[in-house]
């Protein structure tokens, strides 16, 4: 304990304890207030519905609201007051908690990266959330919410310098430190202008917004001044049905088709519009730069993110595309990295680009896309046969069940024969699909990388570096053991990487070869 106090005194020179920005109070109050608003609204609504909302009830409710609000503000202030952080000599420390305190220390050599994120309200107030990523997988990351933009930048720079100071030799780190100051002038690898965003948005066609609207309507129906379904029913009952029926039949075939076309067109327009809106919100001013510290990606309209991915943290590449966008030559590239994005495990580095635009990014990451000379291998033929048999077999079993039912049940039972036919057709379709997809399911290993590719119309290619793999497992289920194939699962930091259904001998041979590369380089000596 004494020693700890000593180091604390010593560390105080490096950075004293600080609190996060006072404006955090505003953000937290607005946020919890927003959450509390719905229950309060419900309470108000139910009281007013009962009709006794005058006098005492209203007064009690008002007083309750005030007490609740002051409690919220008080709580926010207390937790702000009791939270402090320090950039020390060896670690970042954070102490928090109103009654039960927690003190966390993250040593610099465990910090993978520092990223800044701005959601809408903090952004209006000029605040950022600072995340110290340790590669722990998102849950236990150290977060500081919120500090001012300048403090965020300062924290990031000083922590980065500390991290590098720990790792790099002194002469090297001096050179790097001078580069740090010049960081903003990175070489732009990829950026998306408004036109590109618009095209990307069109491909992000989505009808989710419909589902959301319908769901919201069902949930919040009772808040509307009238009952939607009753109103619709009334309208139909009153005059709708006869009139509409008369109208529609009066329109004739051409008009009916026109109406159909109109509704389909409306669906398409809404789908595209929602695609464009979500794309603009997420990828506004998308910019990927190559800085001395690694790849720096900035994007976002309302929630701005600024993420730096050190090159040596990139564990694997994922190249993917869509069925339609592939026809127009568009592809997306993302990294699997130790430090992870909050929402999806991948770091999108170029979500919508031409292949030749991706090449410089791939080169900068030290990886390579599979070249023409790579010899691809397919999964075992037994694997294909089993997949076909399994996926079709279930359907045929169902068809058989229909036939048995037809035989057993009295003749009044209708549609059983049709059911059997439909299930058999499904069985055939699945069998053909599995047999066909197998042709597009392949893997390759060359001197430096392991490649996998899956999918026919929208292929997805993954590239992992041999020396950056952590472990290799040969896994077999009972069927696989009987039929002599297996899955080869690689331990990859921050993601998963596996080759499925390859012959056992191939798997063992690949494992032996890749293990030689892994064992030859120690984790601590992996290229940085």
């Amino acid at each position, binding site marked *: 304990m004494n020693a700890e106090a000593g180091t604390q005194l010593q560390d105080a020179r490096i950075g004293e304890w600080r609190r996060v920005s006072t404006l955090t109070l505003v953000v937290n109050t607005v946020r919890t207030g927003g959450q509390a608003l719905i229950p309060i609204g419900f309470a108000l609504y139910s009281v007013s519905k009962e009709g006794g909302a005058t006098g005492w009830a209203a007064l009690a409710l008002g007083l309750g609201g005030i007490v609740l609000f002051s409690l919220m503000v008080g709580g926010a202030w207390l937790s702000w007051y009791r939270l402090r952080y320090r950039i020390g000599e060896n670690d970042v420390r954070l102490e928090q908690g109103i009654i039960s305190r927690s003190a966390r220390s993250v040593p610099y050599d465990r910090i993978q990266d520092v990223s800044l994120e701005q959601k809408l309200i903090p952004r209006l107030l000029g605040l950022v959330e600072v995340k110290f990523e340790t590669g722990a997988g998102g849950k236990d990351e150290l977060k500081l919410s919120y500090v001012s933009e300048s403090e965020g930048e300062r924290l990031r720079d000083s922590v980065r310098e500390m991290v590098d100071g720990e790792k790099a030799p002194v002469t090297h780190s001096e050179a790097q430190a001078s580069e740090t100051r010049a960081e903003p002038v990175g070489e732009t690898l990829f950026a998306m202008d408004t036109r590109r965003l618009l095209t990307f948005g069109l491909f992000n066609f989505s009808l989710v917004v419909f589902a959301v609207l319908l769901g919201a309507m069902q949930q919040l129906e009772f808040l509307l001044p009238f009952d939607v379904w009753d109103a619709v029913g009334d309208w139909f009952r009153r005059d709708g049905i006869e009139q509409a029926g008369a109208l529609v039949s009066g329109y004739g075939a051409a008009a009916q088709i026109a109406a159909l076309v109109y509704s389909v067109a409306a669906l398409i327009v809404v789908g595209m519009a929602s695609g464009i809106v979500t794309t603009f919100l997420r990828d506004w001013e998308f910019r990927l730069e190559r800085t001395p510290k690694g790849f720096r990606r900035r994007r976002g309209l309302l929630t701005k993110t600024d993420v730096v991915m050190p090159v040596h943290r990139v564990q694997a590449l994922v190249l993917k595309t869509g069925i339609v966008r592939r026809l127009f030559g568009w592809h997306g590239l993302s990294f699997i990295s130790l430090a992870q994005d909050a929402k999806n495990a991948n770091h999108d580095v170029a979500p919508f680009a031409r292949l030749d635009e991706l090449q410089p990014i791939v080169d900068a990451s030290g990886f390579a896309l599979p070249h023409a000379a790579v010899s691809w291998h397919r999964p075992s033929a037994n694997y294909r046969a089993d997949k076909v048999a399994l996926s079709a077999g279930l359907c045929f079993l169902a068809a058989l069940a229909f036939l048995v039912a037809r035989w057993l049940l009295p003749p009044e039972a209708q549609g059983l024969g049709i059911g059997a036919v439909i299930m058999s057709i499904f069985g055939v379709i699945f069998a053909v699909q599995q047999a066909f997809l197998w042709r597009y399911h392949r893997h390759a290993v060359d001197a430096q990388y392991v490649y996998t590719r899956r999918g026919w119309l929208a292929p997805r290619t993954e590239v992992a570096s041999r020396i950056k793999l*952590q472990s*290799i*497992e040969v896994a077999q289920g009972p069927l696989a053991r009987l039929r002599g194939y297996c899955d080869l699962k690689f331990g990859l930091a921050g993601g998963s*990487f596996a080759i499925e259904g390859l012959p056992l001998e191939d798997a063992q041979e690949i494992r032996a070869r890749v293990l030689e590369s892994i064992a030859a380089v120690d984790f601590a000596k992996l290229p940085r």
Partner: protein
Amino acid sequence: MDTEPLTKLDPAYTTVMRIEGALTVLPFLIAATVLGVVGAFPSPWTWAPMIVPVLIALVFVILVPLKRYMARGYHMSDDRLRVVKGVMFHADTVVPFSRVQHLDVEQGPLERTFGIARLILHTAGTHNSSVTLPGLAHDTAVAMREDIRAHVKRESL
């Protein structure tokens, strides 16, 4: 490289698994006894519920521990550890020492009674982030840990 002979685990591991199996059977045994004593089933079938715990005991106390023991094994070479396991679902994992982040030797109360331990290798990978090798004699586990640690230390210097 997959032809090298696997080292078997400590035989006491089977005993531990048998006791664990017996603990699984216990609630069923109690339930069946209660049903028998209460006489929930008519005369010749009074003790029929006992069939369930007996069957479970056959599987979990006799069959499964033996099968598991037979299926498990490991091989330690000078730069990697291979762990094999799985009766139905076979898994054969190799962890190079150069990728080991840290090591644990763990013992539960039952394991301590029989002097065995689990060796756990932690890697940075998301899949197989910790590879467990159970059923080692405690001394062996500690010796293996020291060997691997020495290797990790030597390599990262």
